[in-house]
């Protein structure tokens, strides 16, 4: 086992894993506020990438303005989704709301396919394509961007949840909605905020990933699935567990493809996931749910 190859697998795993992690974060934030798994989360990721390409090529905006526009639009889409389809069915069975999110994901995918086309598109890298040497492995600048931006998003969210009044209010909602309501927190507004933040985080993931992996109207399906697996692995409800889960899945995939067989790349992550769930059903970083009967 030589160090160069190992580092190469590790870098590629961390890069891809970061975006799984960001997707998983989105799942977690909405889950905490509403107890709902939002299956349109992958679509937020896709919209980040696709809208950036759209604003860049069709509207002729520069790369940076295009990205800001795309992220803003996706965040707004998250808010609109909450207002139009989630709030009207407030209080409905969680399963029903989950089904609605699946419907929304199909709707968004169809819309993007209709207006932006079925092709795969590439977004130019933020800075240079020349790869850098790193102890016998090579790393492209975009990977560094992905890792740095993911770090910033994580730190930002940590500060938001622990230090700001909005963040604390959201946490309160996630613990006990009724109590939060009683102390004067607008639960409605917190739910809307949770959709906005998830869409924001998801679209950032989509934007930073697009220069490496390219993007198309249907990338959200697989990313959503991997992101969901990541947040189960990390423990549903724990944002930092979700991010860690994403990184773990990404690295396992890369190492599995590198050292065992590329044919079963997708299987490794899911086998490990199953194994962990057998041993610790609440996920690696999750607290076991205690229910009083």
């Amino acid at each position, binding site marked *: 086992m030589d160090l160069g190859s190992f580092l190469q697998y590790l870098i590629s795993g961390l890069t891809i894993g970061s975006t799984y992690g960001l997707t998983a974060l989105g799942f977690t934030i909405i889950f905490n506020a509403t107890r709902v798994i939002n299956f349109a989360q992958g679509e937020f990721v896709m919209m980040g990438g696709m809208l950036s390409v759209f604003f860049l090529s069709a509207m002729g905006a520069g790369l940076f303005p295009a990205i800001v526009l795309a992220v803003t639009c996706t965040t707004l889409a998250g808010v609109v989704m909450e207002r139009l389809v989630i709030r009207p069915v407030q209080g409905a069975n969680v399963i029903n709301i989950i089904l609605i999110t699946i419907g929304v994901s199909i709707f968004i995918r169809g819309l993007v396919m209709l207006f932006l086309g079925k092709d795969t598109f590439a977004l130019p890298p933020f800075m240079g394509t020349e790869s850098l040497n790193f102890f016998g492995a090579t790393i492209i600048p975009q990977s560094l961007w992905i890792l740095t931006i993911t770090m910033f998003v994580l730190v930002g969210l940590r500060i938001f949840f622990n230090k700001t009044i909005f963040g604390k209010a959201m946490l309160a909602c996630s613990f006990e909605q009724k109590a939060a309501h009683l102390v004067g927190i607008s639960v409605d507004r917190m739910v809307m905020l949770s959709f906005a933040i998830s869409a924001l985080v998801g679209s950032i993931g989509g934007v930073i990933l697009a220069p490496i992996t390219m993007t198309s109207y249907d990338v959200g399906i697989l990313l959503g699935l991997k992101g969901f697996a990541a947040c189960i692995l990390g423990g549903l409800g724990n944002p930092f567990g979700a991010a860690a889960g994403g990184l773990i899945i990404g690295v396992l995939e890369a190492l599995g493809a590198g050292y065992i067989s*590329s044919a079963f790349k997708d299987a490794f992550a899911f086998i490990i996931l199953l194994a962990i769930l057998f041993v610790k059903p609440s996920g690696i970083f999750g607290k076991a749910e205690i229910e009083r009967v």
Partner: protein
Amino acid sequence: MKKILMSLLAMFVVFTAGNVYAGDSIKIGVVASVTGPASFLGEPERNTLVMLEDQINASGGIMGKKLEIIIYDDETEVNKAVLAADRLIRRDRVQAGIGGTTSGNTLAIMSNFTRAQIPLVSMAAAERIVNPVNPWIFKTPQSDRHAVTRILKHAKAQGYQNVAILTVSDGFGQAGREVLRELVPEMGFNLVADEIFGPRDTDMTSQLTRIRNQSPDAIICWGTNPGPAVIARNRQQLRLDIPLYMSHGVASRRFIELAGSAAEGLLLPLGRLAVAEQIPDDHPQKGLLLDYISQYEERFNAPVSSFGGYAWDALMLIKEAIEKGESAEPKSIRDNLEKIQGFVGTGGIFNLSPEDHNGLDESSFVMAVIEDQDWKIVSE
């Protein structure tokens, strides 16, 4: 929406109205995937057939009879393809069939045509369509085998010994992998690595690192967009200077756009349609290809693709067979399709026989290198 419905209705009326003068026209039925995931194949095929129908009828039809082409869209769904084939055979009573667009749909409708004893010329590439030979089934696109042979001949001329393959885990990639695993050793190479990637995978550095550790002389990648573009970019990232061959599955401008600077220097087999301007003037296909390109682009205001060419070949081969046998009876069309020799089409020069219902060989491909974001034919 209303407009679409109206035009669909109009199309329906036109198709059914065709039944009135059935006696003195030659009817050819088409099952194509004009919409759905394979629409990028089916749409140019439909366009080409519509254009040829007009051209042939404007110049007096086939043997003085009006040519009538009935096209049903299967929406890239197997069930709809089977229903369409059934309708063409039972209700429209066509004399020959063209289709399907995809290999899956072709394999699904083959038995309908065989049972009805009507010849079918497929526009899909899978080798299974014509191997083993089914007396009633033909196809126009080259087989994977021809592309693999073309690549390996080029590799042999460069003196390469050790070859690694990297294939996508879908139907196209696995069919290619089978042929590669058979022909690579057969043509005297060592197969040193056999890696696989998923059609939606976004990072193939693991596979490429594994391949690098086997230090092959060349890598052959078999897939359709976007995987191969990711591989080209990963290869650039890893600074691999091992030559990389791509399959004809990425013989489109889109691949060059997606891979960007990473596409430079990649080699791939191309049909001559893609590089028509570059082939020598005395090549028999040159005039035909340039005509087809200019007519198509003028009428549809869209760039031509090799997929439309498959439809061109299918229809013109049937026309040739009808004129050869001076009969539009299905049996006569079938018999005469097998006798066609030296027929110049868009895909290559067809030499059909009872044993070979495709009629092309590896010479229907040229090797090209991507240079300055364009293809350039390489001489051996």
